[in-house]
């Protein structure tokens, strides 16, 4: 056993109202630069819908993630190492800009500079890539709240496996929002695909990053990530991705997307896991076993043996203590209501989701029944094939039993707490059906419904003894160059700009990029 710690996230989808605050604050923090206009490290999709980039879940097309070869060994779905090196010259699996969208800005100056006249001046959209006039025909959240769904949403790959009559009725039936960031996988396909070895997983906290100084722009990470959460900066020619806001995490703070989440639906905490067990878990034969396999990789921080092993592997006492208080461990392992997104990609993702009960409740109400009656909801969960099949296609490799079990628990929690609050009764039959104790049920309720800041985010700061080395990197951030993710916009004039670390960023080699 080799114990490692991972900073992980859980999102409670019932609470997401699709306000995109996470996306906007993330963009303002990380991708408000030339070259990444089209990039959203955090985006919020409406499901059912094709997503961003379009149909990214269709691995028949993009060949992202892992698969098992005939002998049961893990292999990147894009092919063996040799085959992928040969496709360096033209990557057949790389999305086009149009699969994301062409970013636009407006000629705002027209509003100010237009001559006086009888009409209000009109601004026109300009491509942020070419500066030319353009028609805006797609965007990162084009399908917001099922906008255009009758036309576009049938192309959602998750609907492909479902029966015909479901497809036609779905927009009357259910809808929910799915916020997505990088999954910071235990078995990251992007890292495995990087020919330069520029992508890496941090040993201390499992955050997956791109070394901007070592990335050579081979763009294999972009196509190999099944979630399409690595992007090309078309100005620097290098890959960029969600950083899990590592500077904030190191300071013991939650990510920007979590901090600013209006619905308070995000949870951040540690998971201790057995690094030696990762590959075996990722190569179980049946994709429906991947969820349990991944859960077996996670270690119980309350187990004295695990704590001892963690200490032996250099994990500090405060981190072990943080792991014990981790909301992620509770939601994924103790209450078992959080599920990974598309476990069948075999990357062992570490951003998990509590599937939404609201589509079921909506359906019950839509049928004219009382959604507050647990019997109605329980029947709906077992009888309604939509949206269970759909949720199962997202969160459990198609196993509706897993999703139904979680929804039952959430529904039981609602009814249990309702009875407790209204007349003080204890509905032990509900506890039994959910397989939980009264204490667990109330604690889960507190974590999900009350959701105090300190309970949602249990992030231990990076270590003081590392602080000297960390601050040595502060004046030496390799990302500060022109067009870099840490672009400071502070460069002396001339061909070269001296960066914080004493290296020189050469403006000579950087394209003009955006129109701004």
């Amino acid at each position, binding site marked *: 056993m080799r114990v490692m710690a991972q900073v992980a996230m859980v999102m409670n989808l019932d609470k997401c109202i699709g306000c995109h605050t996470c996306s906007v604050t993330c963009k303002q923090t990380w991708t408000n630069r030339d070259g990444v206009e089209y990039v959203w490290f955090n985006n919020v999709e409406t499901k059912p819908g094709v997503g961003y980039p379009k149909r990214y879940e269709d691995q028949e097309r993009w060949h992202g993630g892992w698969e098992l070869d005939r002998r049961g060994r893990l292999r990147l779905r894009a092919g063996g190492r040799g085959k992928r090196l040969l496709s360096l*010259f*033209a990557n057949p699996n790389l999305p086009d800009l149009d699969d994301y969208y062409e970013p636009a800005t407006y000629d705002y100056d027209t509003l100010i500079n237009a001559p006086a006249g009888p009409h209000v001046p009109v601004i026109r959209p300009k491509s942020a890539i*070419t500066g030319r006039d353009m028609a805006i025909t797609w965007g990162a959240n084009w399908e917001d709240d099922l906008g255009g769904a009758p036309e576009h949403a049938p192309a959602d790959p998750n609907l492909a496996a479902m029966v015909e009559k479901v497809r036609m009725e779905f927009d009357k039936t259910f809808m929910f929002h799915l916020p997505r960031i990088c999954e910071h996988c235990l078995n990251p396909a992007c890292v495995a695909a990087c020919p*330069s070895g520029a992508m890496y997983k941090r040993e201390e906290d499992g955050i997956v990053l791109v070394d901007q100084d070592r990335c050579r722009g081979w763009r294999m990470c972009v196509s190999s990530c099944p979630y399409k959460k690595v992007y090309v900066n078309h100005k620097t020619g290098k890959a960029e991705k969600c950083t899990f806001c590592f500077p904030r995490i190191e300071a013991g703070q939650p990510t920007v997307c979590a901090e600013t989440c209006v619905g308070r639906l995000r949870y951040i905490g540690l998971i201790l896991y057995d690094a030696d067990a990762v590959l075996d878990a990722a190569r179980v034969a049946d994709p429906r076993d991947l969820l349990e396999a991944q859960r077996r990789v996670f270690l119980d921080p309350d187990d004295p043996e695990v704590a001892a092993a963690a200490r032996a592997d250099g994990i500090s006492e405060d981190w072990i203590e943080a792991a014990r208080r981790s909301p992620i461990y509770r939601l994924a392992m103790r209450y078992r209501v959080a599920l990974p997104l598309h476990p069948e990609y075999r990357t062992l993702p570490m951003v998990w989701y509590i599937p939404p009960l609201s589509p079921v409740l909506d359906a019950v109400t839509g049928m004219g029944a009382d959604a507050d009656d647990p019997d109605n909801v329980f029947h709906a969960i077992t009888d309604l094939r939509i949206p269970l099949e759909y949720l199962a296609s997202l969160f459990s490799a198609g196993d509706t039993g897993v999703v139904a079990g979680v929804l039952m628990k959430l529904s039981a929690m609602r009814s249990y707490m309702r009875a407790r609050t209204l007349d003080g009764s204890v509905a032990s039959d509900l506890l039994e059906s959910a397989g939980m104790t009264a204490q667990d049920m109330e604690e889960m309720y507190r974590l999900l419904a009350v959701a105090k800041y300190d309970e949602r985010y249990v992030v231990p700061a990076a270590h003081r003894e590392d602080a000297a*080395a960390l601050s040595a990197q502060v004046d030496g951030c390799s990302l500060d160059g022109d067009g870099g993710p840490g672009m400071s916009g502070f460069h002396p004039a001339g061909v070269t700009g001296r960066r914080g670390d004493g*290296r020189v960023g050469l403006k000579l080699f950087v394209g003009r990029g955006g129109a701004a």
Partner: protein
Amino acid sequence: MSVALWVVVPYIALTVFVVGHVWRWRVDQFGWTTRTTQVLESRLLRLGSPLFHLGAFAAIGGHVLGLLVPKSLTEAVGVDEHLYHLVSVSAGTVAGLMVVAGLGLLLARRFTSPRVRRTTTRADRVLFTVLAAVILLGMTATVGKNLLGGGYDYRATIAVWFRGVLTFRPDPGLMADVPLIFQLHALSAWALAAIWPFTRLVHVWSAPIAYLWRPYVVYRRRTPLGVRR
């Protein structure tokens, strides 16, 4: 004049090539990239880029064979002039056509796709001009002299002179009577060498061969022992 062209020019170019690479490697890791534009345009790239790169590999291999391997060595292993000529001209023509077609497509893409055009830098413009000159002159030499013309045995002159330059015993006299087209091709190649370190061509040295035996998932400590500066 002869010394200037066939001794001074090569050594200036080689010096810039070597010193330039050392300097750029130390100073500009962030700019050291292929500068990929495939997300911006992939239809023409899908055809043009493999053609260009595979053709270039073949052409480079041919040049190594023709310039670095002495004629005496190939003859010692039983390859006579006729056979050598046959192989080099046919393979060279095919490789050359691939490179020309590939570069043509890639350049067309630069001009016809506004997105790609916008990312084109000054360094790119200089590079594409010089690269096109080297390739077209080389093609003219191969097709014009060796395929359609009577053939020119560059291995008796240019190759010997080139090896002389590399071993610091340059003999400019060998180049005096070389046909003009070969002379121009050689000079343009030195120009390419001189601009090489300052362009995207540096990605050639980062060809990720080590990927073939690297473990799949890379772990790194946040604070490496002995912080890299």
